[in-house]
């Protein structure tokens, strides 16, 4: 495949040096797709791709063969060469073929071992990346009613609950106060994060099931001339994009070749006209939304699934230092047409939409935990990350933090100001 002009020089040289010829067959869809999408990758993804390929390129042919020996042996056992396996990109058919092989789990472990070796090598030669404090803020807002005796049950030993004093006349939600700021906080956390000198693209994300949080974030723009803008994703503000996308997806017949054909078409369609300005203007965020919709997990269907899956994918792909996520309310399934859950229910059924507050609360509780568990899968978040989950209807927060986080220990009620100050200090 033609090497993209946007690739860094050292990576381009490695490709011209034949690094792709050293890769096992099952690595090629990944490598080729990363090259093709280079301009849409987040800095962390570029770094990981470079780490792997430059490491392989640095090895002698013998060492390179040894690195991939287990993967190649498994590919032989799986008979990958006899499959209809795309090497140009990752397809549904590829995923299906791999997943139903009896050697799939072994193959996954062997692939991970290669990436781990590349990372170890990079840490040895370049030194471990500087550790920076990170912050994950999650909100289950009113009017989602939560039960005090069960809301944190699934969190187990992760963090401690604290009562939070919420002023009765608070304008906006607790999360909005912390992230955006209000008269009592001279500025919000988002402004401070984006003003940091070391801030880089995709370091800060705000994800909203509704639109209020993103509207406020947009209203506070621009922070500082030249400051790197945060990635702002609102399920509501993406309504038109989602509806156009789901219309295309619903044309998909239930066979793989067709699914891949439709996915191929959806990968090429220009999303910009369907997106709100903050996404349309950000090519990587736009492609992130496209991939989010294509990867399922309810992101096209339910706002809370969108929030959770977007946050999980942001951790996996971009490793942000600041992420704020706010859940919301979904509608009850409508009689009869609920089976067609992939359709737009308002388009299919004229009955009025009715909020499902209890159901949304159940969904948000587990999905809030999933956001934090998604972060914890990565070493970057293992030590220097604070997570605060706000249960607004209970006036409580769950705080998961290392011991050095400067928040008053004990049972006392926290004020939003004191919490905001501690978080501000943490990320400064």
């Amino acid at each position, binding site marked *: 495949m033609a090497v993209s002009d946007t690739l860094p020089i050292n990576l381009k040289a490695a490709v011209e040096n034949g690094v792709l010829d050293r890769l096992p067959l099952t690595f090629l869809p990944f490598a080729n797709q990363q090259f093709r999408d280079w301009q849409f990758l987040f800095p962390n993804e570029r770094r990981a791709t470079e780490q792997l390929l430059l490491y392989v390129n640095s090895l002698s042919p013998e060492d390179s063969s040894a690195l991939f020996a287990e993967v190649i042996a498994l590919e032989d056992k799986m008979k990958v060469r006899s499959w209809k396996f795309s090497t140009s990109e990752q397809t549904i058919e590829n995923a*299906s073929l791999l*997943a*139903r*092989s*009896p050697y799939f*789990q072994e193959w996954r472990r062997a692939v991970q071992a290669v990436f781990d070796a590349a990372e170890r090598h990079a840490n040895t030669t370049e030194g471990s990346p500087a550790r920076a404090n990170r912050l994950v803020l999650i909100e289950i807002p009113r009017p989602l009613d939560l039960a005090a005796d069960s809301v944190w049950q*699934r969190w187990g030993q992760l963090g401690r609950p604290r009562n939070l004093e919420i002023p009765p006349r608070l304008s906006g939600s607790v999360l909005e106060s912390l992230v955006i700021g209000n008269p009592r906080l001279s500025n919000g956390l988002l402004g401070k994060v984006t003003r940091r000198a070391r801030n880089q693209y995709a370091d800060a994300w705000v994800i909203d099931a509704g639109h209020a949080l993103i509207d406020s974030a947009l209203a506070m723009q621009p922070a500082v001339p030249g400051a790197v803008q945060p990635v702002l994703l609102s399920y509501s503000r993406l309504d038109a994009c989602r509806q156009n996308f789901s219309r295309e997806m619903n044309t998909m017949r*239930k*066979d*793989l070749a067709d699914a891949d054909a439709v996915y191929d078409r959806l990968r090429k369609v220009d999303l910009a006209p369907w997106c709100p300005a903050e996404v349309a203007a950000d090519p990587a965020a736009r492609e992130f939304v496209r991939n989010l919709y294509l990867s*399922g*997990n*309810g*992101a096209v*269907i*339910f706002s*809370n*699934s969108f929030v*959770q*899956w977007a946050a*999980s994918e942001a951790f996996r792909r971009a490793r942000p230092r600041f992420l704020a996520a706010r859940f919301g309310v*979904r509608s009850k*399934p*409508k*009689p*009869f*047409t*609920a*089976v*067609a*859950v992939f*359709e737009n229910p308002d*388009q*299919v*059924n*004229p*009955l009025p939409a009715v909020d*499902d507050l*209890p*159901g*949304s609360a*159940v*969904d948000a509780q*587990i*999905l809030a*935990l*999933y956001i934090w*568990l*998604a972060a*914890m*899968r990565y070493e970057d978040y293992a030590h220097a990350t604070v997570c605060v989950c706000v249960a607004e209807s209970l006036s409580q927060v769950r705080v998961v933090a290392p011991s050095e986080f400067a928040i008053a220990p004990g049972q006392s009620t926290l004020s939003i100001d004191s919490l905001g100050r501690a978080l501000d200090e943490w990320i400064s």
Partner: protein
Amino acid sequence: MLPWARALESVSAGAGSGHKVVLVVIGGVRRTDTFSREGLENIPHLAHDLLPQALYYDHARNEGVTAHFNAISSILTGNWQRVDDWGRLAPTTPTLFEQFRKGLGVDRSDAWMVASNKALTSLIGASSASGYGPEFGANVVFPKQLMLMAVADALRGGRTANMADRDRIEAEMESAMEGNNYEGLGWNVFDAADRLDPRVRDSIRDAVARFVHSGGPTSGDELTFFMVREIMRRFSPRLLVVAFSDVEAAHFGSYAMHLSGIRTADRLTFQIWNEIQANPDYSDKTTMVTLPEFGRDPDGSSTNGFFNHRANDDSTRDTWMMVLGSAVDRPNVIEKPMRHVDVCPTLAGLLGCRQLESQGTLLGDFRT
């Protein structure tokens, strides 16, 4: 001669053991959401009404591909199937339906599969094995797909207003049934390639009418249940497989809807058991086996927890199985793990079929 008349003529009523088998397969549910301290509230009927009279296997393992078509076809064949996930390929070894029909000379009217799951196709009803195949397969019915088709037709025809009116919904579903190619839907009822047998048509119509006007919940599994009950009452098949899938709302990330799907499956399974007890064609000669296809992924997994069922983890592979009725000598809890591929040979034994070579083994706790 009508296919149905041919079918009646060829039935060999005395073949086999005279035993009837109803196999209920629920989609992916985790032990933590069902048979665990915190999960019992989601399965009141299974846990409190049925468990005391059941042979209960606490560990039923899916050691194959944890995707719908392969999971169900592994249960139905006694061999771990690794065919296409989307039902484009038939299982490669004979299904229980084929073993039953070919081995005992049983007519197609005695072997049915009624399924909600969208990932299945009519190829689930018979294998590609030499000497077997569709000639010995089951009647496969996908009621939910009929409903989906009705919704899609109404949408295409600009008649979405009909979706708010029960009489019009019934008409839309009947129209979908009449106006489309049954084979495309997965129907292969009897030998009627070009049109449905009138009795089957009436069964479907009655099931749809009861479902639409019941005033109760309107999920795909509810319609599947109405269809199952209608088939039991009209045809009394000796081998009936039911696949529920409301729990698969989990794929869209709604845990509340997933739990609701578990409660629905719990209630409908209980209702099927009650129908077996009340129907003289079934009572005292039927074994009902219930098991999930697999679990779901654990919280915190890289596969997004309960949403999916891809992790190589006990949360995904280790579930349970409940046996009720004639094959239960005495209620018991079996701790020793069994495998999904053990179901087919064991049920084949109950039906009086000759055992085929398979990866599964007979479960000795069943009374034959």
